[in-house]
């Protein structure tokens, strides 16, 4: 781990995190903070999805389940048991990771399209369960009272704290991607992504690695979900388990370059900024998905390696610095 400090990429991530944290503080710009909070959330979701998609080569449509379940566990602990925010977040992360480990050993026996379909099944199953689970408010969801922000110094102050925490989760996601990519575990995952049978014959414990990465990729999104829904003070199944957010995380990965840390992060940032612009612009507001779709089509056709694939081929030296 100490070796990572000597890598320039470590400091690039640190710089990005500091920039995120300071940018809205400087001008006390609340609308910029809200926009950057969504960027940080997208970067977290996409980076963790990338562990499955870009490293191990498994298309996971169900990544949003981690986010939603994390949100539910956190909101439930805060609401029903008056737990403080931070322990609730940690329990949400660990709980969802543990569930993912159990699920992972089951559904990761499937490959390719079958796995992808099974992950959609996981979303549907979890959503159906939550809609009928009375302690979590069923399909009506759970509202949090305004009281919850008191321990954090009132609503205005709390929103800043939540923002900094979300940026920290984003930073941890980037470091996690970086650390795994430069480890033996990461090498095994990349081998699985290239040719799973050959990897097994070379001695990579494929089932264990796949279940482990599925579980690891659940941890930080669950915490991000907890933060997000705590901030909204409201959670309901259709928001928590929204398939389109899962799909967007996949698109972001392809946009930036699967398997790269930098590309996925920049892809998420650009995608979310673009989406924000399209949604608020008077010209595009009604067909923002058409624009996003056309963009995806162009990328798949002309830049199959995504943004980083393009940069790597133009400036080969960047490969040594940008993971």
């Amino acid at each position, binding site marked *: 781990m100490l070796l990572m400090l000597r890598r320039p990429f470590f400091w690039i991530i640190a710089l990005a995190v500091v920039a995120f944290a300071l940018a809205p503080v400087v001008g006390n710009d609340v609308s910029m903070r809200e926009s950057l909070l969504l960027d940080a959330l997208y970067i977290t979701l996409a980076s963790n999805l990338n562990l499955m998609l870009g490293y191990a080569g498994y298309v996971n449509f169900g990544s949003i389940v981690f986010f939603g379940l994390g949100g539910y566990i956190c909101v439930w602990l805060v609401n029903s048991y008056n737990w403080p925010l931070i322990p609730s977040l940690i329990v949400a992360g660990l709980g969802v990771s543990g569930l993912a480990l159990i699920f992972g050993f089951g559904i990761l026996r499937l490959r390719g399209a079958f796995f992808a379909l099974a992950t959609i099944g996981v979303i549907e199953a979890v959503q159906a369960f939550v809609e009928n689970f009375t302690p979590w408010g069923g399909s009506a969801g759970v509202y949090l009272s305004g009281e919850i922000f008191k321990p954090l110094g009132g609503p205005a102050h709390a929103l800043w704290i939540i923002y900094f925490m979300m940026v920290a989760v984003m930073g941890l996601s980037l470091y996690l991607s970086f650390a795994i990519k430069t480890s033996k575990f990461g090498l095994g995952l990349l*081998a699985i992504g290239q040719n799973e049978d050959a990897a097994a014959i070379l*001695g990579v414990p494929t089932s264990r690695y796949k279940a482990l990465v599925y579980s690891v990729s659940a941890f930080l999104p669950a915490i991000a979900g907890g933060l997000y829904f705590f901030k909204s003070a409201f959670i309901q199944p259709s928001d928590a388990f929204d398939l389109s957010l899962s799909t967007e995380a996949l698109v972001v990965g392809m946009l930036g370059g699967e398997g790269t840390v930098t590309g996925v992060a920049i892809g998420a940032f650009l995608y979310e900024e673009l989406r924000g612009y399209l949604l608020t612009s008077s010209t595009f507001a009604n067909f923002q998905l058409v624009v996003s779709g056309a963009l995806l089509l162009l990328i798949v056709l002309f830049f199959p390696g995504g943004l980083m694939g393009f940069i790597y081929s133009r400036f080969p030296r960047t490969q040594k610095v940008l993971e």
Partner: protein
Amino acid sequence: MTALLVLEKVGKRFGGLQAVKDLSFEVREGEILGLIGPNGAGKSTLFNLINGVFAPDTGRITFVGTDITGEKPYRVARHGLARTHQIVQPLTNMTVLENCTVGACFGKDNLPLHRARAAARDAVAVTGLQDRAEARASQLTIAGKKRLELARALAAQPKLLMLDEVLAGLNPTEVEHMIGVIRRIRERGVTILMIEHLMQAIMSLSDRIVVLNFGQKLAEGVPAEVAQHPQVIEAYLGNPKLAAELQGSSA
């Protein structure tokens, strides 16, 4: 010589096809054992049974005194048994060196990453791929990919190396080069079990030969003995003249 790998009455059936039947033989430490036989004789199936891609229906496989029958491929690799594939299986988007690092990391010694890189470099050098170490596996020629298979298996520091037709599809110069590589690997004390259709090559490389036909053992012995075995000539070599030639070349 002690036996490294022992097969006892191993059998495997795929539906109506008995691919391997009651097969017993052993691979002794330090030798090169050649495995020959007509197409469909069960040679590649046998490799898949040994390294755990399929579990045998009957029989027992022992490696260095440990029963490995039906163990998963990744567990078998940890015991020190590495193989190449007849149809090359490179990790296409990774470099030659990275491919070999995977082999070294997850092979017999379960090396940490930095030591695995050193082992990988060594394997790349032995197989003569130094110049291509940073090339992506997908950019190699077929001969290069065959060598990569070998380098990657070797990087795992195996006790037993199983080679599935590493000479197939190579031109005469490349064949000669590859034979040199195989000899060098053997000199490092690695035991080799190899499937090969190229008669001259296998007859001159092998210490002993096992002949398979319809999943059963037809003959076993030193190359000269096997080449004059009447049933081998009938089932596989086909013409007595070739048999006579091979006897001459291996004597």
